[in-house]
């Protein structure tokens, strides 16, 4: 099981700020594909990812209990 946090546009697309994904045996890229299919999220290839608050990349493998944040282009400041 992994927890997925959604922000900004993605939060609005999904209608929620977090999701629980029952399995964890996958890469970030696979998770993104699954979310695009299941939740209709778009442009995930253009989205940064953090695992447990550390930036990572699409090849990273998830572990049970991870918190994955999908981070659209930031615009603070």
């Amino acid at each position: 099981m992994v927890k997925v946090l959604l922000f900004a546009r993605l939060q609005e697309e999904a209608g929620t700020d977090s999701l629980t994904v029952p399995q964890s045996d996958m890469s970030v890229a696979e998770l993104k594909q699954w979310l695009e299919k299941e939740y209709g999220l778009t442009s995930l290839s253009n989205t940064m990812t953090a695992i447990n608050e550390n930036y990572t990349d699409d090849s990273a493998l998830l572990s049970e209990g991870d918190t994955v944040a999908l981070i659209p282009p930031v615009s603070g400041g």
Partner: protein
Amino acid sequence: MTEKKRFLITEEPISTEDVIQKVIRRECGAVTTFMGTVREFTQGKQTIRLEYHAYKSMAEKMLAEIDKEVSNKWPGVTTAITHRVGTLEITETAVVIAVSSPHRKAAYEANEYIIERIKQIVPIWKKEYWEDGTTWVGDQLEKVPYPEGAPQKGAHHG
């Protein structure tokens, strides 16, 4: 307690003076601050208000990461950064960056570096409310997914 955090995401209006006080030291001769304020017009288009959202815990962590980068590049510099979230009206302050340094050159350079890095790696999002709709700023552009210097898996941040 909260007032003393040098890297803070808050829903409250920001007191620039409070942020400055966090960096004042006897060995400093120069303090620079940057305030990002809500501008009414951007390329002729009127902003009604802004809304900032953050991944709060990670955003504060990334601000502390930026501080580490700054300390490596400009030894002897002290920084404090507060970013506000929630709804902001025109002229309200979204972010305050304070930098103190024995000498002024480093205080200017480090301050400008910090705002550039915030715009690259800190998970905060700005939603513009126009008269005719809303925009998540940044997201509508084609951007490189990982800006230069965003920590990579296996780097010292991992």
